[in-house]
């Protein structure tokens, strides 16, 4: 009930690929397509995924939402697959499919019986380069995406506010744009916009095949060669480096009030080191910091604000550091009805200052370590979790070996590492503090 959801980052700057997290195998096809196999023979089932190393952060200025829009359009049709039939074929073969887009990646997947793997590999390879769209598809699907945006973002004040906070965190980096796109720009997306993006980026040398389940690398290699290896590499597909984020020199505050808001909420986000930005060696210590500060009912923030002082009904932290660009470290709290948001903010600032001044205890460190290492075991219980972890990590620039040796990195983190990471990240000039309230805030 009081449990808070914790993000977990699985990255380490160096590491040996010994007995690993998932015991994944990997190889690269001649055309440059990377392949990762995560064997799990508990059931005759596979999760088949293709991840493209590009996402909303790679969109041209003024075309926000095109990566996600294209993702929708990939279900329309090719020369071989009639419009709308992709998912129907998967379903008629007892599978299910979907796709998702983030800032750094676009991914497509099917979950299906082992003996149908070849079918979906053929279909997925086909739509990597043979997409056929007509104007009607584009107009109807754009309406669907606009409805999606209303449902996710615009139907609640919190949805819209979150987008504003994110935009304020970045001065010019494209991570400040919403993955789904700004409404005004989605409305103008055209068939040409989508196809230009598709032709430029959808290519085997910009893609990663990940298969988890009842399969081995030896099984998969000939199939991967047959279906994906036969697609020529596109020499022009190189995804450009993301723009630099200039130095942040002033703390920002984002405030809004809305009569539809029932309860005031407070949050702060800091730019943070990630696997692709700043010091990647800080990512594991930042996982610890997130656990110790805000990971559930025994964390410092929950204990101080919710249990001991009773000034908040919830409080916690998250850290997101598997990305090409800046990561973020977040803190949040919901003030108690009889408390005020300034007191909550002051108490959180005091907790941060205390960690920097006095460090963390051995008990806290070991509790966090136990939890992080156990997460690695529990993660193996889900077929798709491993596939997602690899897709997320590899599209952020992490290697398979680094993912596999993440538990080693967790074992090495010291109390000093955690404090050093706190000192580096908790810099108010690199933060946005945001308050959404029912009434005007001062």
């Amino acid at each position: 009930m009081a449990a808070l959801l914790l993000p977990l980052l699985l990255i380490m700057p160096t590491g040996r690929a010994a007995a690993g997290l998932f015991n994944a195998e990997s190889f690269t096809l001649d055309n440059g397509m990377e392949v990762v196999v995560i064997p799990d023979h508990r059931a005759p089932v596979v999760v088949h995924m293709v991840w493209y190393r590009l996402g909303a952060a790679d969109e041209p200025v003024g075309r926000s939402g095109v990566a996600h829009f294209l993702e929708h359009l990939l279900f329309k049709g090719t020369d071989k697959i009639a419009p709308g039939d992709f998912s129907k074929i998967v379903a008629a073969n007892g599978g299910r499919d979907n796709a998702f887009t983030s800032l750094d990646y676009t991914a497509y997947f099917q979950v299906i019986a082992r003996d149908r793997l070849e079918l979906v590999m053929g279909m997925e390879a086909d739509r990597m380069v043979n997409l056929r769209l007509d104007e009607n598809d584009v107009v109807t699907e754009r309406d669907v995406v606009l409805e999606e945006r209303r449902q996710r973002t615009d139907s609640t004040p919190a949805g819209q506010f979150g987008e504003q906070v994110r935009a304020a965190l970045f001065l010019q980096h494209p991570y400040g744009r919403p993955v789904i796109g700004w409404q005004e720009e989605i409305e103008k997306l055209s068939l040409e916009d989508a196809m230009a993006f598709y032709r430029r980026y959808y290519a085997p040398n910009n893609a990663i095949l990940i298969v988890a389940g009842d399969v081995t690398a030896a099984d998969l290699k000939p199939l991967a060669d047959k279906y994906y290896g036969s697609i020529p590499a596109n020499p022009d597909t190189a995804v450009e480096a993301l723009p630099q984020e200039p130095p942040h020199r002033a703390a920002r505050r984002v405030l809004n009030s809305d009569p539809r808001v029932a309860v005031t909420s407070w949050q702060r986000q800091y730019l943070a080191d990630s696997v692709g930005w700043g010091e990647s060696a800080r990512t594991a210590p930042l996982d610890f910091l997130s656990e110790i500060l805000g990971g559930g009912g025994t964390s410092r923030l929950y204990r101080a604000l919710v249990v001991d002082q009773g000034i908040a009904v919830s409080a916690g932290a998250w850290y997101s550091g598997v990305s090409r660009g800046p990561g973020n470290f977040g803190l949040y709290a919901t003030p108690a009805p009889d408390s005020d948001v300034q007191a909550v903010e002051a108490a959180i600032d005091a907790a941060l200052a205390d960690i920097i001044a006095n460090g963390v205890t051995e008990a806290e460190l070991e509790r966090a370590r136990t939890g992080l290492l156990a997460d690695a075991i529990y993660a193996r219980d889900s077929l798709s979790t491993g596939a997602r972890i690899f897709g997320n990590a590899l599209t952020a620039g992490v290697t398979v070996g680094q993912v596999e040796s993440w538990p080693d990195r967790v074992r090495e983190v010291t109390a000093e590492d955690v404090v050093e990471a706190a000192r580096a990240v908790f810099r108010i000039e690199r933060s946005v503090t945001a308050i959404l309230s029912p009434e005007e805030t001062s």
Partner: protein
Amino acid sequence: MSFLWAILRGNTFRAALVAGLTMSIGQARAQSGDIIEVVSDRGVVAWLKQEPSIPMIAVSAIWRQAGSVSDPSALAGRANMVSGLLDEGSGDLDSQGFQQRLDDLAVRLSFDAGRDSFSMSLQTLTANASEAFRLAGQALTAPRFDAEPVERIRRQILTGIARSAQDPNAIAGRLFSALAYGDDPYGRPVEGTLESVAAIGPDDLRDFVAQRLARNSLIIGVVGDVSPDALKGLLDAAFGDLPEWSVPLGLGDVSMGAARGLTVTDYPTSQTSFLFGLPGLKRDDPDYDAARVMNHMLGGGGFTSLLTEEVREKRGLTYGIFSYMRPQDRDGLWLGGLSTSNDRAAEAWEVLRQTIRDYAETGPDAQRLADAKANMNGAFPLRLTSNEGIAGLLVALQRYDLGKDYVARRPELINAVTIADVKRVALRILDLDGMLAVAVGQPVGLTTGQ
């Protein structure tokens, strides 16, 4: 869930993943021969599927007639409040002591209250199993309900209720239940109300534990790295000290009342959220499998369903539309929902109704039925490829008396459904004139009573 959450943050999916909406639980590799019934020395019964490949154990347990249906009217939300407090101190451990113990051992223990049932989920590394099961037993039999956690959890629940009063989907859900069931316990929100939650005292919470969490209403599923013999001792540690009998609730069957038609609730937002439903079937109804196939084609089959085709794919009126069968202990429901922009809400509503009407009148063609069966049978093993998920399946098999061989029998049950069966259950369920619907938003051209 930390891994998944980290990875899903910021993602935008092609389709909303509708989770937890259906009781038609799939079963992966739980082959019929694999399920073992384990009876502990003290008589605690559990179904076990051994899975040695990951050093962990997953337990799913439910107590029937212990959900919000057991809340006294003035104490609505009692079961839910208990679910938030069982891990907040018991025996010699106060709230922080108990939580730290769980964290130190990486034990995942949580409780939840639904409408009909109260449930427990336990996941532990095999190495810590003895202590994990003992702690679960302590939480169930010696909860402290100290003042500090009781008031803290109460504040959290009250905050959640206040928030949901401003959430269009939550508003729709509460309104639908209230209209459908009135004063019946099914008409009340599981979380209770601001007034009822404020009225719940520690003695009420203790009454719940003493009267509801008994062994006669308990169903247990276990999957993981544990032998039947070892499990016996663990079961006794967790459940052996529970009272033998719960206090009978004396609640009979129920059905949706006379309320029907559309109710529009004004909410200032750009989109209208619809929730619609009709009386459905209980899980033991002989037509249940036919109804499940019928619904799969109409609104349960994701991208392949008629409602998705007509409302989303052809017209772009929504991002997500769905329907599902919801069997409950005292009745069944057929429910569905969609969100659409206010200015197109009337069109979406009309297309929705027309699609249902056409389907109820003409039924599916042979190809659609064959595809649906192939999908349902093929997808069945996919949906539970985790220990945690299969533990839930083992509970469902016992709860609905489906038998250990259900996994093997299920394809036959689905394949036996004919077009005539589908038409029969469509006529039985899809009575548009009797449909109850709520729309929360500012739909243009739609008013209450339409």
